[in-house]
């Protein structure tokens, strides 16, 4: 393949990876800090995408839609957290899996009821609906660059919060030893609610900005969930750095896999995961 083609794939892989990072970071935070495995995490991505679609239709403007959608997604997350996850903190992973699996069924079907089973699209919003000339023979979608920029910016914010703020230290401490954190007088309940809301917001937001890039269809949450699981397994539980590099690896592998070995493309990420497991069973950055 020629350089231009390669560069496009590289950029695509990066963009996909960065998007995955947003979602995976929410997943790994929620698990690392709260110890909760939330299968419905993918459904949040789907909800973000559908909200973006729906509100863009109603409000006529993609950016307004996102602005309106974020609080709705957070509110939904809070409801779920208060209603169900309260009881799950102290219980076995098994029950969390079952309950959140039930949630997936409910949310997926609710989506069907509200928006039906058709596939929808959201137009790439102005002012990014153009291509930019990067080099002599390389054109690339401005919107994709925008998405990458936003994800990188958010990654930077997360990094800064984790390293340089009190909240970040509490989060990192909580991931290692929850009881101690409680013993330090920090209201763990509030912390958990905060973490969960952030996780949900990041994921739903990822769904929103991804909307113009993919087709919005039922079940889109399920496939992204499993991909994120692979990212977290590769990167290591509770590790934001792991989620980042894991996501980049998976993003690249998926994108290049699809063009280089199309017959095995869908299996590539699992083979990578198997390889990592052989060498480092707890993930690369555990």
């Amino acid at each position: 393949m020629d350089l231009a083609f390669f560069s496009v794939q590289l950029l695509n892989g990066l963009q996909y990876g960065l998007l995955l990072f947003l979602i995976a970071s929410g997943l790994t935070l929620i698990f690392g800090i709260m110890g909760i495995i939330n299968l419905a995490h993918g459904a949040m991505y789907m909800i973000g995408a559908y909200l973006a679609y729906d509100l863009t239709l109603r409000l006529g403007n993609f950016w307004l839609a996102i602005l309106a959608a974020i609080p709705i997604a957070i509110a939904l997350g809070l409801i779920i957290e208060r209603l169900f996850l309260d009881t799950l903190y102290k219980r076995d992973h098994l029950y969390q899996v079952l309950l959140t699996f039930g949630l997936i069924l409910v949310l997926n079907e609710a989506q069907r009821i509200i928006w039906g089973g058709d596939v929808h699209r959201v137009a790439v919003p102005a002012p990014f609906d153009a291509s930019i000339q990067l080099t002599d023979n390389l054109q690339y979608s401005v919107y994709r660059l925008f998405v990458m920029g936003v994800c990188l910016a958010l990654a930077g914010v997360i990094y800064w919060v984790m390293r340089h703020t009190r909240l970040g230290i509490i989060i990192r401490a909580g991931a290692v030893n929850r009881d101690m954190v409680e013993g330090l007088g920090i209201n763990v309940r509030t912390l958990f609610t905060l973490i969960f809301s952030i996780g949900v917001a990041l994921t739903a937001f990822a769904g929103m900005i991804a909307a113009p890039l993919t087709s919005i269809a039922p079940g889109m949450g399920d496939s992204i969930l499993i991909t994120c699981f692979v990212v977290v397994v590769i990167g290591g539980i509770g590790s934001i750095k792991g989620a980042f590099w894991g996501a980049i690896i998976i993003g690249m592998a998926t994108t290049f896999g699809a063009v280089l070995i199309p017959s095995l493309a869908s299996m590539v990420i699992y083979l990578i995961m198997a390889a990592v497991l052989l060498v480092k069973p707890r993930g690369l950055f555990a």
Partner: protein
Amino acid sequence: MLHRYPKRVALIMLMLTALVAAFPLWGEAVFGNQANFMLEKLTLMLILALFAMSLDLLVGIVGLVSLGHALFFGLGAYTLALASPDFSPASMWWMLPLVMGVSACVGLVIGILVIRTKGIFFIMTTLAFGQMLYYFISTSQFAGGTDGVFIMFRPSLALGERTLVDLDNPYSFFYFCLGMLLLGYFFLRWLTRSYFGQVLDGIHDNEHRMQALGYATSGYKLVAFVIAGVMAAIAGMLAAMQYGFANPAQLGWHTSGEVLMMLILGGMGTIFGPILGAFAYEILLYIYEHATTHWPILMGLTIIVAVLVLPRGIAGLIIAPPWHRKRQAAPEAASEHEKAPVALSAQPATPRKEN
């Protein structure tokens, strides 16, 4: 864990088994011309019960939560479908060992990779491997892609010229599946009460201590993983015979989730609980499907309620009925009672172990 239950458990299971086995006698009287359809549904429930029991060995007994168990179920179905000759029935004499052999090998390979992971990692990796096989089968030519593979002829079970069991006949197939279920049940019952089962109990309860005692816990977990896989594959093979085809959905994680739901409905760690759970799930599914096209919401809510309100499942109700507990509330503290030797393994007494 003694895995010994109050007498009423045996009584109830015996009655239910007799009821099911006698279906050909009372089926028509109750269901009229729907009887044949109901027989097929019943046969399916028996097959799913075998599937659910196999998962109970992993989840309920050893404590390994697998979200990819459908991998083996589908593997059994596809082995049958792909190994069956095009124009004549295969013989069960080699089909069954083939299914068991293939699933044992796959179980060994995947098991070696996943057993080294613990807790949530195990959940994620089993899910991922299940999906890997799903994608592999869905996108491959030789396995029919998303359409799946039809099974032209059910295998035969014959001795030379004489047919021992006519598996094409819905009634004999029904009894064949019942027989397999009972075989599986007594096998697991024996296994869990054996010394091997005691080691599995120990691993479930406190794996760290088992290792400190000198047990090679990974080896035991791997053996359990493979056994569970083989049993699930047998169930998958039977399912393919019942449906008449193998298709990728049988491998997918929604199937893995479904069988997990059967486990919680029925009651984990009891071996007989999952049988009840499979029946309960299918019955509920039937009711919900006829109630509304949006039945997944009902099923989802049912599971949520089951987790919140009835974590020990139907088996839990039979073993320790609520009215029993009230009578004995005086000498025991309310929830401590559940830790009696007959307790189900659903909740660990120690805080959740993380890695």
